C-alpha cells in the first residue's frame, strides 16, 4: 500500500469521516475539523502507522497533504 492510500485511511479515522478522499493538494481548509488542535491527533496517528517520529519543525511547516506525504517518505527513507 503506498503512502497516500495509508494516509487516506488515517485521515478517515482521525477526522471521523469514512468517505474522505485526500489528494496532494488537500489543505486544512478542505478537511472539516482539521485545525491546530486536531493536528496533534493526525501527527500521532501518522507516526504510529508509519513507525516514524516527527520533530517540532516537521509538524509546523506543513502546508498541504503533499508536503506531509513527502515528509513521511523522507522519514521512511532515513530509516532505511
Amino acid at each position, binding site marked *: 500500500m503506498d503512502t497516500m492510500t495509508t494516509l487516506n485511511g488515517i485521515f478517515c*479515522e*482521525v*477526522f*471521523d*469521516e469514512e468517505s474522505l478522499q485526500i489528494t496532494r493538494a488537500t489543505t486544512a481548509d478542505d478537511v*472539516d*475539523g482539521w*485545525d*491546530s*488542535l*486536531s493536528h*496533534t*491527533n493526525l*501527527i*500521532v*496517528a501518522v*507516526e*504510529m502507522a508509519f513507525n516514524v517520529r516527527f520533530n*517540532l*519543525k516537521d*509538524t*509546523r*511547516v506543513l502546508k498541504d497533504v503533499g508536503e506531509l506525504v513527502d515528509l513521511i517518505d523522507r522519514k521512511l527513507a532515513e530509516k532505511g
Partner: protein
Amino acid sequence: MLFSSYIFLFVFLPAALLLYYLTPARGRNLALTGLSYFFYGWANPYFTLLLFASTAISYFCAVIMARRPGDPATKELPLLDDEAPVSLRQKAAFWLSIVANLSLLGFFKYFNFGLENLNALLVTLGLDHLQVEGLFRIALPLGISFYVFKTVSYTIDVWQGSVRATRNFADFACYVSLFPQLIAGPIVRYREVAAQLASRIHTSEKFARGTSFMCLGLAKKVLLADTCGKVADTCFNAATLSTLDAWYGLFAYTMQIYFDFSAYSDMAIGVCLMFGFVISKNFDSPYHADSFADFWRRWHISLSTWLRDYLFTPLNYMLLTDRVRERMVREKFRYNYPAIASSVVVFTICGIWHGAGWTFAAWGAMHGILLALEQLRTKKSAYWKWPKALRVCCTFVPISLAWVFFRAADLGSAFGYFGSLFGLAPKTAGTDLVAGVIYQPYYLLTVAAAAVLVWSAPQTWDFTRALTWRKATWCYVLLLISIATLVTKAHSPFIYAAF
C-alpha cells in the same frame, strides 16, 4: 493620539499623507518611520526609546544570527538552515533578543501587578512588615504588547529559517513602528510585509478603499461602540442590577467590544492601504462562529495565529511524550490530551497578555476551558446536527459571559455581576435608577442596530472590495455623521489601545 481624535483625523493623518506622497519613493519608509515615532511620542516622548530599543535589539540580533563569518556586509543575508549546526554566537543572539524583548514587556506591563500581588501575599502570610513599598509606578507604554510580539515573531522566524533577516534598518524600523498598527495591532508578521517594505504599489483604488475602511471604522467606533459603551458602563458601574438590566448591559458590552475592535481593525487596515500596505484580515465576523475554536479563527486573527505558532504548537509538541502518544492511540484519539492542556495554558497567557490583572487571566482561562471542553465533542455529536443559528447562539452566550471578566474592574465585581445575571444580587435603592438611563430610546435603538449589523451586514472587507459611487456616498455620509457626533461628545479611547 487615537484614530478617533480630532488631532489624528484633521491634522496628523492629512499632514502625514502629504509628507509621505511628497517624499521620493526610496525615502518613504524613513519618512513613515519618522511619522510613526512622532505619533508614538505624542503622549510620552520617552516611550519612543522603548520602541527603538525593541527594534534595534531585534534587528542586530537577527543580523548576528543570520550572517555567516566572512560574508561581506553588503550581501543579502541567507535564510537560516535549521539542519545546520548552530554557533554559540547565533544562540546567544537569539536568546538575547527574546529575553530582552520579553523583559521589556514584562517589566513595563507587569511590574505593578507583580508588586501588588507580592504585597497581598505577604499580608496573607502575616508578614506585613516585609511589604515592598511602591517606590514608583510604572506607566504602561502604549502598544508595547503589540510591537514586542512583532519583534519576537521576527526573531523566531529568522531563527527557524522561515524569513530572511533584513540588513535594511530603516525598513525594519518602519515595520515595527508603522503607526496604523502600532497601538492596537494587527500583529503583522515581518514575512507578510517584507516584500511591500521593499517596494509597494500606490493606486487611487487602494487609497479610495483605505479611505472607505477609515470612514466605516470611524462610524463603527463613534456611532455604535461608544453608544453601546454608555449602556455597558452604566450597568458595570452600578452596585446592583436587576436580572434583565444585567443581561442588557452585558449584551451592550458584547456589542461595544465587537464594534470597538472591529472599528480599530478597519481603521488600521484603511490607513495602511492609504500608505500602500495591504495587510490581512484581523476580524472575520466572530459572532457568526458556531464553536469556540471557530470564534478564535475569527476574533483578533493576528493574535490567535501568533499564539498558535509561537506558543500553542511548541507547547503541544512538548506535551506529546511517548506515554501520551500511546494513550491517544489506545483510546482511538478520543481525548487529545496535549491540545486540551495547551488550550488552557495558552489562553490563560492570552488573557494576561491583554492586561495585567486577574480578571484578564480569568477571561483567558475561561476561553481555554471552553476550548478544552469542546475537544471532547466528536464530529458525530448531535450538536453538529442542530440548526446553525442554535449553534451560533450556544457559542455566543458563553463568550458573552466571559466578557464579564474582561470588562469588570476586579474579580469581586465580576462575580457580583454574575450574581445580577442569575438573579442572586440583592435589590437596592439604586437598582431602578439604572433603568432610567439604559432604556433611553437612543440607546435601545443603537444596541438593536448593532445586533442587526453584527448578524446581517456585510463585512467592511467585502463592502469596500468593489467600490461604487453609491457605496462611496454611504461612506461619506457616515463620515459626516461620525464627525458631527464627535463634535458633540468627548471621544473615548479604543479598548484594545489599553493593552
